[in-house]
């Protein structure tokens, strides 16, 4: 599949043989942590150990908040509910059936099963095509409130407002608990950091940066988010399970909304998006609270509140984010070489069966497509077809419905009436990611890329659907279809693969988005004013790329464009939209010389020929 022979450009040194990169980065801190965990009981007193065990279990829950909020962009107040589910699964299990090996297994299974079921339901409720991040936060607020009410009304089964105590639990020494909790935290950190820095983990950051672009790269972001909710829910439940197994008390506060917000505070102070930061934030706050809440009861919470506000307003990266920024600034000051990319990336070309040069299947069929907003009709009865190897320009004055038409082709839920077939398949009410699967690629009007991802990662996200990414490592090889690679090389992006997309110029961002869309290997390409804001040279390069794509790859390109000279240069056909209808549809020469074009563009309002014709 991959053509390694053409791997021309090597960004930096070859990765060290033998040891995977992630092992080196995760291994050393893990060893330090393990040493602390082993040595802890010899250094610390009983009181401190006691607090630390609880703090470490809370830290795991904080870690799940960080993954959801810092990495995937979903601010959640509801992880406390899953913590509570785990806590009560153990407490109820041991209270009802006594302590024993099978009871422990049963409770564990109940914790995992309940958490997964609730998380699945919450995820389904929170994430759907078009859902907003705020709505997910709203649901995460409601969840712990409902759970606590259920616990209150559970009578002696849940212990109501006083919770459950006095059940027999695991017979483990304090040192044993400390080492167990410590090992669990280190394990969770290693697994999370390996998974999140892998190619698959990068998808989460991509969704946080730009959910819509992900969808239009064929990724079902709702499904990914639901899956993540289930995983983090189960992990938080296991943390609650351990917490109550150690403390022997399950209280409604363990599941409540206030605890949920405390987890967010811990992550914010430690540093969202930094796994170590979340753990350090949780441990420091838990330990400090334990020591200070007796001596300075309200002042301590006041300090936390002030620190929280300051961090949110001034240092959104939290403690570890600021440390990272300071380190970067320092490196810049002393003139050390900037770290370009974590792993060097080599470009490669994907082989692809050659497209027969005479393929001209109809790949876009719009029949009677209409779009109404209330009584306002933006598109009415638009019908046309387009074939492979055609470059169709859609022109028309502002408000003619051009972008709406593109939207109706790319998203099955947009149009009010009519049918659309892409590559022979009716799109029905499909979500954009499914239509991308049919062979459609859409480039947005404003360059839409993943701002905090490197250029290479942006391109890799575009390949996620066709080349399932690795969950453990970051591949040093970036294999792209020939067309995408040609854009990357000709635009100069190839030299900047390790750079974050937000540092690119406007023109390069446009090129990157085009390369990302081409990496999907679409049969139909939708372009919305792709040359707006480009320089003349960039525009000419772009024209060359497009005509090449149409000729060689037999792509069907639909392009919205205002510049009639440019349109004349590249198009094989022109569709003129006016007032939501197809006014003209024909070869370039016929349409540009039609008097109607001049009438419409100069605002002359004589009877519309298109309306007479239709």
């Amino acid at each position, binding site marked *: 599949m991959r053509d390694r022979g053409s791997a021309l450009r090597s960004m930096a040194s070859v990765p060290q043989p033998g040891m995977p990169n992630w092992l080196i980065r995760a291994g050393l801190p893990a060893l330090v942590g393990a040493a602390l965990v082993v040595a802890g009981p010899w250094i610390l007193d009983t009181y401190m150990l006691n607090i630390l065990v609880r703090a470490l279990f809370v830290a795991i829950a904080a870690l799940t908040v960080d993954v959801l909020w810092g990495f995937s962009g979903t601010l959640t107040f509801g992880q406390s509910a899953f913590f509570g589910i785990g806590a009560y699964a153990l407490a109820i299990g041991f209270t009802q059936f006594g302590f024993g090996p099978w009871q422990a297994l049963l409770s564990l299974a109940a914790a995992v099963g309940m958490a997964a079921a609730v998380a699945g339901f919450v995820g389904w409720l929170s994430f759907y095509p078009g859902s907003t991040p705020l*709505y997910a936060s709203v649901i995460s*607020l409601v969840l712990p409130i*409902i759970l606590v*009410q259920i616990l209150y009304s559970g009578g002696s089964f849940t212990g109501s407002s006083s919770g459950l105590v006095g059940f027999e639990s695991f017979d483990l020494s304090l040192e044993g608990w400390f080492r167990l909790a410590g090992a669990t935290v280190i394990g969770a950190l290693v697994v999370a950091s390996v998974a999140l820095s892998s190619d698959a983990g990068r998808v989460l950051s991509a969704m946080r940066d730009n959910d819509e672009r992900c969808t239009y790269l064929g990724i079902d972001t709702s499904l990914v988010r639901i899956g993540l909710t289930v995983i983090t829910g189960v992990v938080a439940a296991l943390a609650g399970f351990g917490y109550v197994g150690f403390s022997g008390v399950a209280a409604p506060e363990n599941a409540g909304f206030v605890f949920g917000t405390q987890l967010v505070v811990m992550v914010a102070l430690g540093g969202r998006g930094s796994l170590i930061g979340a753990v350090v934030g949780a441990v420091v706050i838990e330990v400090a609270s334990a020591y200070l809440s007796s001596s300075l009861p309200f002042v301590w*919470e006041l300090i936390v509140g002030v620190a*929280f506000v300051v961090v949110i307003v001034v240092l959104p990266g939290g403690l570890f984010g600021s440390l990272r920024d300071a380190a970067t600034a320092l490196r810049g000051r002393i003139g050390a070489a900037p770290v370009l990319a974590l792993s060097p990336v080599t470009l490669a070309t994907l082989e692809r069966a050659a497209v027969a040069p005479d393929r001209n299947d109809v790949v876009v069929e719009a029949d009677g497509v209409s779009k109404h907003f209330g009584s306002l009709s933006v598109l009415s009865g638009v019908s046309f077809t387009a074939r492979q190897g055609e470059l169709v320009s859609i022109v028309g004055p502002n408000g003619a419905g051009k972008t709406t038409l593109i939207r109706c082709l790319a998203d099955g839920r947009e149009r009010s009436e009519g049918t659309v077939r892409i590559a022979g398949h009716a799109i029905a009410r499909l979500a954009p990611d499914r239509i991308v699967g049919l062979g459609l690629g859409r480039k947005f009007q404003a360059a839409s890329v993943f701002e905090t991802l490197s250029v290479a990662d942006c391109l890799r996200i575009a390949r996620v659907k066709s080349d399932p990414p690795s969950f453990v490592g970051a591949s040093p090889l970036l294999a792209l279809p020939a067309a995408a690679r040609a854009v990357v090389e000709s635009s100069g992006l190839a030299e900047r693969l390790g750079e974050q997309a937000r540092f690119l110029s406007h023109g390069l961002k446009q090129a990157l988005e085009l390369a990302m869309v081409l990496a999907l290997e679409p049969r139909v390409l939708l372009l919305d004013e792709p040359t707006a804001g480009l320089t003349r040279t960039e525009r000419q390069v772009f024209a060359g790329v497009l005509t090449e794509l149409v000729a060689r790859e037999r792509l069907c390109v639909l392009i919205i464009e205002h510049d009639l000279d440019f349109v004349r240069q590249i198009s094989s056909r022109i569709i003129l939209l006016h007032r939501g209808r197809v006014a003209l549809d024909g070869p370039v020469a016929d349409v540009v010389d039609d008097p109607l074009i001049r009438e419409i563009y100069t605002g002359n309002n004589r009877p519309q020929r298109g309306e007479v014709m239709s």
Partner: protein
Amino acid sequence: MITLVLDIITTAAILFIVSAGLLIVFGVMKIINFAHAAFITIGAYAGLGASRLGLSPVLAPALAFLAGGLIGVAAERVVVRRLYGRPLDAILATWGLSIVIGQLVTLAFGREVQFVPAPVSGTVMILGEDYSSYRLLMVLAAIVIAALFTGLLNGTRLGLSTRAVIMNETLAQGLGIDSTRVRLITFGIGCGLAATAGALITPLASVDPNMGLSWLIGAFMLVMISGGSLLTLGLSCIVLGGLQVLASTFISPILGGLTIAVLAAVALRLRPEGFARA
């Protein structure tokens, strides 16, 4: 039956009073003021102070409005102003603010639960049923708040600027409207209204540093579902407040307490933009 109807009407009125301030901030600034609960608490303590000083009970809501409004203006200048581009962070920062205010209130007034006597006690006879006169007074208060607010929005220059900012902030700025000032005043009024609500509801409940919190989620959900319009907020309060009363009366009070949150969450799933243009 009469009691039930009166319960529904008065519950809706109380919910409206408690949510109005949050709605104003959300409608104009598109951010959710999670410190709303803390401002309710501030108003409650202002009411407590007023009754301790022996001031006329009519003055308590006014005093609360002043206290809440001034603290709100200060909070806007110091914290909220920097977060207009980051709505999720604004939720968090205002939540942090509510922690700070809650702790300051605790330090100043202590943790214990306190009570404010109702200025109007006793019951009135309506269609053959005795009903708490203070609860009925809440309906009047809700109508006054709605009327004042509508008048402010539609009858004053500030209201005109505010409506312009709601519709199109960039354009409003281009026309020379000082949107920063509009936001400052809006936040102040929103917080002042929250505090007024706190002063008004305390005779029905007790006063403690965390008292606002129990109102926050309900108010928040009502505002989300109303989509930012005062009229739909009123309707939401009547519909959801009514269902809450019915669920509490006929099924269980615990279920009643969950009604608003659950129904609003489901309704928002079906209509994410709220019901402002329904």
